[in-house]
């Protein structure tokens, strides 16, 4: 899989810590018990020493049916074969391993064993150095900063994930998205039949500046019953970093203009989420057609914009702290 190789190279860039590096190869799972017994033993030593044992404990916690990690309540049959609760509901009271009646027996011992385990985040190979108790690992993984990004292309459901350089290449090569360098832009959006909003028109352009990538979305949709056009920017990276940037969008004509200034949202927030929170330049169609001039039959919008880096003023405690828009 080329996705894996992509991830691998990015790890090399991020990981400069020798310990983490080793961790990655051993894929350690360390028991808490061992840890407290010998405080000086670091994770790696424990991992290499106990590798056969911990690996098999880890295997014990894999559901034999779906191979996912099992979380309480963990079930077992009369013969002691274990099963996760999701699969238990699907096997019609018959143990998938021995075909005997399953019954309703909980495997508390295994749950306790799981509780004592500490495991590395599954995004370890992408650079996450963190180790978690078994039950909080799952929660972390859904918000881990190293988790891969989803493809920001909004038109069709694209399931590709990866890191930012990979996704930029993917957008360019597979979605044929226009790439631009520089922090200012000037785009014309022309649509010959703007009354047909049903076939939602949208466009994506990628900008490369300050060593980062930004997605400019432009689209037509119905806001409630009102046809509108909307333009907004998303930052290809994490939210904390997105807040270092600002952008402006301007559209107008015939003595009127509308200017939006905002902070780009991270591509972690889906295109739809940003759109539905109205966090961008929204132009009512009436006004858009007025800006277009002519006979109002054709949409001709010129959107100009700029991206800039927020001045580091966090010491003053001024506008630097921007709460997240939910």
């Amino acid at each position: 899989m080329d996705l894996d190789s992509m991830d691998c190279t990015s790890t090399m860039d991020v990981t400069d810590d020798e310990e983490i590096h080793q961790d990655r190869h051993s894929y350690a799972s360390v028991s808490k018990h061992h840890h407290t017994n010998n405080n000086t033993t670091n994770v790696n030593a424990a991992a290499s020493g106990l590798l056969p044992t911990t690996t098999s404990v880890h295997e014990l916690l894999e559901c034999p049916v779906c191979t996912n990690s099992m979380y309480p309540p963990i079930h077992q049959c009369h013969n002691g074969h274990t099963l996760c609760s999701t699969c238990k509901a699907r096997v019609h009271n018959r143990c998938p391993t021995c075909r005997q009646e399953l019954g309703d027996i909980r495997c508390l011992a295994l749950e306790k064993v799981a509780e004592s385990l500490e495991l590395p985040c599954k995004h370890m190979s992408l650079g996450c150095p963190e180790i978690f108790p078994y039950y909080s690992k799952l929660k972390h993984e859904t918000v881990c900063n190293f988790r891969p990004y989803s493809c920001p292309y909004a038109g069709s459901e694209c399931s590709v994930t990866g890191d930012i350089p990979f996704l930029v290449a993917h957008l360019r090569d597979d979605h044929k998205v226009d790439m631009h360098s520089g922090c200012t832009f000037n785009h014309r959006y022309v649509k010959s039949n703007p009354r047909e909003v049903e076939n939602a028109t949208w466009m994506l352009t990628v900008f490369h500046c300050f060593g980062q990538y930004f997605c400019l979305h432009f689209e037509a949709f119905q806001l409630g019953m009102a046809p509108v056009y909307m333009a907004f920017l998303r930052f290809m990276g994490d939210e904390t970093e997105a807040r270092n940037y600002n952008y402006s969008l301007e559209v107008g004509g015939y003595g009127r203009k509308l200017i939006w200034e905002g902070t780009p949202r991270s591509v972690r927030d889906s295109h739809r989420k940003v759109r539905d929170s109205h966090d961008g330049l929204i132009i009512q169609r009436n006004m858009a057609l007025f800006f277009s001039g002519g006979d109002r039959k054709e949409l001709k919008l010129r959107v100009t914009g700029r991206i800039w880096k927020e001045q580091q003023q966090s010491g003053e405690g001024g506008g630097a702290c921007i709460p997240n828009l939910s």
Partner: protein
Amino acid sequence: MEPRINDLQVESRVHELLDFPVHTNQISSAIYECPNDHIENPKKKPYNCPHSGAKCDVTGDIQRLLLHLRNDHNVEMSDGRSFSHRYVHHDPKHLHHATWMLTLLDCCGRKFCLYFEAFHLRKTPMYMAFMQFMGDEEEAMSFSYSLQVGGNGRKLTWQGVPRSIRDSHKTVRDSQDGLIITRKLALFFSTDNNTTDKELKLKVSGRVWREQPVSI
């Protein structure tokens, strides 16, 4: 040269033409004493009271309307060269009590009406702010204005040309010729100031300026 008369204005002019006969007949006898002048010189046609809250039948020239607005509607006057208004809406979830406000602005000796109101645009709750010039359309076009609203690191700016109060408040609103923000965005702007999201607090700032010398 771009045509100065745009679609919005054409639309309102047509509207005016349709209004015209009934309108003048109605008021000519009572208030405005120029019974024969109306058709030949529409500039002298009296203006309607721009206070749109309740149906107000008062008409007259600008001076008379200014007095009327101050004395009868208690409308306040601000300096139009730079202003900043706070709009607080305690129950923004209930837009059907149409909330709106009128403030007067002064710039270069001319007066402007600044409207702020909550309404539904095709079922989507919105807030809108716009300005109208107390005078004729021709002179209105020599002015520009800007309105700005923001919070939470975002800012939306509208720059436009004030419409004459010859156009009804509703005409301007329905042509969307002003600063429009959705309630969702307005509430997001308001959460900047430690307010609960149940209350709307918007700060609208702006200014009016003369674009070019008047050529009447």
